[in-house]
C-alpha cells in the first residue's frame, strides 16, 4: 500500500512561487490500478515525481507499506528517457544490469512481454531510428522487464495510434491480473482510464488538488465492449462532470 499524506510541493519561477500540489491525501491499495485525470497544470506529473522520489515534498510524506518497492516508470518525456547510444534492446535491459538482475532471465521476460503485447519491436535499432510509438512501447517494456512492484506511468500511450492505445492498455490489464502490480497512471483519456483503473483521481488546478475520487467497480476482465455498457457510460459522465467542475472553477477564477 502507498499512502500520500498531506503532500504539498511548490516551485519557484521568475514570476514567483507556484503551488503545484497542495494537501494531497491518497491511499493506493496493493495491486490496484489508480488513474489520475485532470487538466494541464493540475499537478499530475508533480504527484508522480513525489511518488517516485524524484521530487522532495515541501510538506507531507509518501509512505510505503514495507520497504521502498521496486519501481518501473514511463516518463512523460519518454523519448529523452531513452539512452540514444544504446539499441532498444539494451535500453530495455539496462535497468536489470543496474539492479543486478540475471540478464538471461531478463531476456526471457522481455520475450514474454513482446508476446503479451503482440508487438514487433525493432530491438536492434537505436531510439532515433524508431517511431515515437515504438520508443514509447520500449519505455513501457523497460518499466515492466524489471518485474516492478509499483508501475508509474505518465501518459504511457500518448504517442500510440488509437488501436495500439487500446490494445496496450488491455494487455497491461492482462499482465496486471497475472502479476498484481500496483499501477499509478496519468491519463488524458477518461475512457482509457475507466477501462483499466480501480479508481480515478480527478485533479483540479491552482493549486493542484484532488477534487474527486471515483471508484470503478466494473467487472474484470474489461474489454472494448465494456465501454458501451451503461455502467461505464455513467462513470464516464461522472468523471467528465467532475473534470468540468474543475474547468468552471478555473474559468471563474480567471474572470474574477
Amino acid at each position, binding site marked *: 500500500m502507498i499512502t500520500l499524506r498531506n503532500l504539498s510541493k511548490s516551485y519557484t519561477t521568475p514570476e514567483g512561487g507556484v503551488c503545484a500540489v497542495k494537501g494531497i491525501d491518497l491511499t493506493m491499495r496493493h495491486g490496484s490500478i489508480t488513474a489520475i485525470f485532470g487538466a494541464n497544470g493540475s499537478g499530475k506529473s508533480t504527484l508522480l515525481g513525489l511518488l*517516485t*522520489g*524524484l521530487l522532495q515534498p515541501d510538506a507531507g510524506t509518501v509512505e510505503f507499506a514495507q520497504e521502498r518497492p*521496486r*519501481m*518501473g*516508470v514511463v*516518463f512523460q*518525456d519518454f523519448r*529523452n*528517457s*531513452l*539512452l*540514444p*547510444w544504446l539499441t532498444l534492446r539494451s535500453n530495455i535491459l*539496462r*535497468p536489470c*544490469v*543496474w*539492479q543486478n538482475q540475471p540478464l538471461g532471465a531478463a531476456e526471457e521476460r522481455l520475450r514474454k512481454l513482446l508476446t503479451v503485447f503482440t508487438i514487433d519491436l525493432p530491438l536492434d535499432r*537505436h*531510439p*532515433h531510428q524508431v517511431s515515437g510509438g515504438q520508443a514509447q512501447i520500449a519505455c513501457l517494456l*523497460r518499466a515492466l522487464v*524489471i518485474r516492478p512492484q509499483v508501475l508509474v506511468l505518465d501518459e504511457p500511450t500518448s504517442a500510440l495510434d488509437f488501436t495500439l492505445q487500446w490494445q496496450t492498455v488491455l494487455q497491461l490489464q492482462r499482465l496486471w491480473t497475472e502479476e498484481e502490480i500496483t499501477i499509478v497512471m496519468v491519463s488524458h483519456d477518461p475512457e482509457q482510464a475507466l477501462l483499466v483503473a480501480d479508481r480515478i483521481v480527478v485533479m483540479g488546478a491552482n493549486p493542484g488538488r484532488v477534487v474527486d475520487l471515483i471508484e470503478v467497480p466494473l467487472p474484470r476482465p474489461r474489454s472494448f465492449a465494456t465501454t458501451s455498457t451503461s455502467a461505464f457510460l455513467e462513470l464516464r459522465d461522472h468523471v467528465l462532470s467532475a473534470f468540468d467542475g474543475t474547468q468552471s472553477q478555473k474559468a471563474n477564477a480567471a474572470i474574477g
Partner: protein
Amino acid sequence: MRRIAIGVFLILGVWSVAHYSGIASSQMLPSPVEAIRRLGILLLSGKLNPDFLASGKRWAAGFFLGVLIGAPVGLAMGHSRWISTALDFPVDFLRSLPVTALFPVFLLAFGIQDASKIAMVASAVAFVMIVTASYGVRQAPRTRQQMAHVFGASSWRKFVDVVLPDAVGQMVSGMRVSLGTSLVVVVVAEMFIGSRFGLGTRLYDAYSINAVPDMYAVLVLIGVIGYLLNVAFLFFERHFVFWVGK
C-alpha cells in the same frame, strides 16, 4: 565531393584574381600555381618531412594531453556544483588570456624545447575541453538521469552509463574546435620559440629569407592538414558518436 571542388575553386579563384589583377604585388603573393609547384617540390624532395614530423609530434602530444586534462576537469565541474563554484572563475579568467600571448610564461616554465610548445597546445585544448565537457554534463536531458535514478543505478553507474555518454557529444565538438586551434598554436609556437624543425619554423624561415613561394607552399600545406584532420574527425564523429544531434 562537389562541395570540396567548389571550395577549392573559390580559394584558387580569389587568390588568382588577387595575383593576376595586380591587387597584390607578385612579390607579396605568388600565383597559386607557383605556390603549389613549390609545395610539390618541397614534398617530393623530402625537405618538409622533418618539419611535418616535428609539428605532428608536438600537435599530437599537446592535443591529447589537453583532452586528458580538460575533459575530466570539465566533467567534474559539470557534475559537481561545488567544484564548479570553485573553478568557474579561474577557468574563465585563464581561458580569456590568449595562449599565444602567454608564450613568455610557457618559456619560463618549460624552457625552449618541445615541452613549452606542447604545454601551449595542451593549454589551448584543455580550456576548450573544460568548457565543452562541463556544458555537456549540464545540458544533458535531466530525464535520463532521473530514469537511471528511479531504476536503481548507483551514482557510479549513473555517471558511466548516462552522464558520460551524454557529455561525449559536446566533448567531441570541443575536440573538433580544438583541432584547428591547436594547429594554429603549434605553428605560432614554432615560429616564435626557437626550434630546428617544424612547419612554423619553416614558415618563419621562408619569410625571413624572402622565399615567398615557399612560405605560401607551407601555408597551403598547413591548411590542407587542418582540413584533413577535420574530415577525419567528422568521420569519427559520424561513426562513433552517431547519436549526437539525433
